[in-house]
C-alpha cells in the first residue's frame, strides 16, 4: 500500500508547470535573438565562459599525463628479464627521450606557425588551446588569450595547415573560437583552380561541405579551397582544405562537394589569431 502511494506521487505530473517552463524557454530564446551583444544573456554567457576557464584548464592539465601514459604504454615492449637496474635506466631514458621528443614536436609546430604567420602578412597573436568542445553539436574551443591581448569578436583563427575558425566570444583572459567544422559556421570560399565561389559549412561528422558552387565549373578531387575574402570576416587566401569527393545529380541545383581540412583540429595545441584592423564582427548566423 505504501509503495503504491509513493509511485502515484512520483508519477503525478503538473501540466501547468511544464507549460510555464516551456513558455519561459521560448521567451529566453526570443530575448536572445532580440537583445544586443551587450544584453543580459550574452553577458551571462561571457561571465560563464570566464568562470569556466580554470576548470577547462584543470581538465586539460589532468588529462595530459593520461594521454602521455597511453602513448608511452603503446610504444613500450616490456622486457621480462631480471635486469631490474637496466630496466629502470631504460625507463628513465625513455622518459627523457619522450620529453625531448615532445620539445622537438612543439618546436616544429611553433616553427610552422611562425612561417605561416609571416606568409599571412597580418598582425598575429599566438595562443594555446585550453578547452575542447563541451558538446557534440556546438564545436568550439577555448584559447588562453582575450581582450587583454587585443583579441576581439570576429578575429580569424588559423593553424599551420590553414583556417581553424573565428572568435565568437571574448573575455579579458580567454576567447571562444567557433570551429569551421561547426554546423553553424559558414566561410565564403573559392576553388583555387576554377575560381568558383561557394560557402564552406561544417557538418556534424567533423567534415566540411562546399555549397553553392556553380554546376558549370565543378571542382575535382584534390582541388584546393581557399577563403575568398567576401563578407569581410576572413582574410582572402587562407587554405580551408582540399576537395575529397564531388557528387552531382541532374536534379541537384549545386554539386555536393566534400572537403577535408588540412588542420587536424582535434589534435592542434597552438593557434594564431589574425588581427585584421577592421575585422567584421561575428555574424549571428555564425559566419559570412
Amino acid at each position: 500500500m505504501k509503495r503504491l502511494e509513493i509511485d502515484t506521487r512520483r508519477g503525478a505530473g503538473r501540466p501547468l508547470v511544464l507549460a510555464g517552463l516551456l513558455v519561459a524557454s521560448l521567451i529566453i530564446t526570443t530575448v536572445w535573438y532580440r537583445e544586443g551583444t551587450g544584453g543580459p544573456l550574452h553577458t551571462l554567457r561571457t561571465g560563464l565562459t570566464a568562470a569556466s576557464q580554470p576548470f577547462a584548464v584543470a581538465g586539460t592539465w589532468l588529462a595530459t599525463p593520461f594521454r602521455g601514459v597511453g602513448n608511452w604504454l603503446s610504444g613500450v615492449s616490456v622486457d621480462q628479464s631480471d635486469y631490474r637496474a637496466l630496466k629502470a635506466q631504460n625507463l628513465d631514458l625513455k622518459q627523457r627521450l619522450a620529453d625531448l621528443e615532445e620539445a622537438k614536436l612543439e618546436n616544429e609546430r611553433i616553427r610552422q606557425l611562425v612561417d605561416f604567420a609571416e606568409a599571412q602578412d597580418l598582425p598575429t597573436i599566438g595562443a594555446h588551446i585550453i578547452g575542447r568542445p563541451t558538446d557534440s553539436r556546438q564545436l568550439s574551443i577555448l584559447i588562453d588569450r582575450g581582450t587583454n591581448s587585443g583579441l576581439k569578436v570576429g578575429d580569424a583563427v588559423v593553424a599551420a595547415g590553414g583556417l581553424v575558425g573565428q572568435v565568437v566570444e571574448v573575455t579579458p583572459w580567454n576567447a571562444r573560437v567557433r570551429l569551421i567544422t561547426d554546423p553553424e559556421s559558414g566561410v565564403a570560399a573559392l576553388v583555387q583552380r576554377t575560381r568558383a565561389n561557394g560557402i564552406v559549412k561544417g557538418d556534424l561528422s567533423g567534415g566540411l561541405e562546399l555549397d553553392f558552387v556553380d554546376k558549370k565549373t565543378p571542382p575535382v578531387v584534390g582541388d584546393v579551397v581557399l577563403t575568398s575574402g567576401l563578407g569581410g570576416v576572413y582574410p582572402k587566401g587562407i587554405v580551408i582544405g582540399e576537395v575529397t569527393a564531388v557528387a552531382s545529380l541532374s536534379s541537384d541545383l549545386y554539386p555536393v562537394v566534400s572537403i577535408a581540412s588540412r588542420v587536424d583540429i582535434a589534435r592542434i595545441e597552438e593557434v594564431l589569431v589574425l588581427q585584421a584592423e577592421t575585422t567584421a564582427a561575428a555574424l549571428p548566423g555564425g559566419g559570412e
Partner: protein
Amino acid sequence: MNKILPPAGALLAAVVLQVALAPQIAVFGVVPNFIFLVVVTLALVEGPVAGGVCGFVGGLLFDLLGTSVVGPYALVLTLVGYVAGMLSASMFAEGWLLPVTVVAIASLITEITYAIVLAVLGVATSFWSSLFTLMLPSALYHTVLVVLAYPWLARVLRPERQIKSFRRLA
C-alpha cells in the same frame, strides 16, 4: 531548502564535469552530457515536475556553455525531464533495466527534438548523417555512463531514501 540542495549541487557538479572532463573522454567526437544524466536521474527518482524544473535549469546552463542560441536546449531538456519522470512511473522495467531504458529513450528523444528545434531556428544539419554519427552513438554512450553513475547519483539526489541496491533504486 533541503530538497533543493542535492539537485542544485548535482547540477553544479555536472556543469564542472561538462567543462573539465567531458571533452577529455569524447569518443569519435561524441561528447557525453553530464547535465542530461543528472536531469534524467532526478526525473527517475523524484518524478516529472522535478525532472522538468531541473531540465529547464540544466538546459539553460548547457545553452550558456555553448556558442549557439540560448534557450532551445532548455526547452528540450524541460520536456525530456518531464517525460522521463512520467515514464519512470509507468514503465514495467525494474532494476538496472529502468534507468538504462529510460536514458536510452530520453537521449534519442533529446537529440532528435534538439535537431528539429535547431532546424526550425535555421541551423540546418543533415538528419540522417547525424542519426548515425551523433544520435545513436550518444544514446549508447549515455546508456553506458548511466550504468556506472546512476546508483551514486540517485543516492545523492534522494538522500532520504535508504537505497542499498540497484533494484531498490528503480
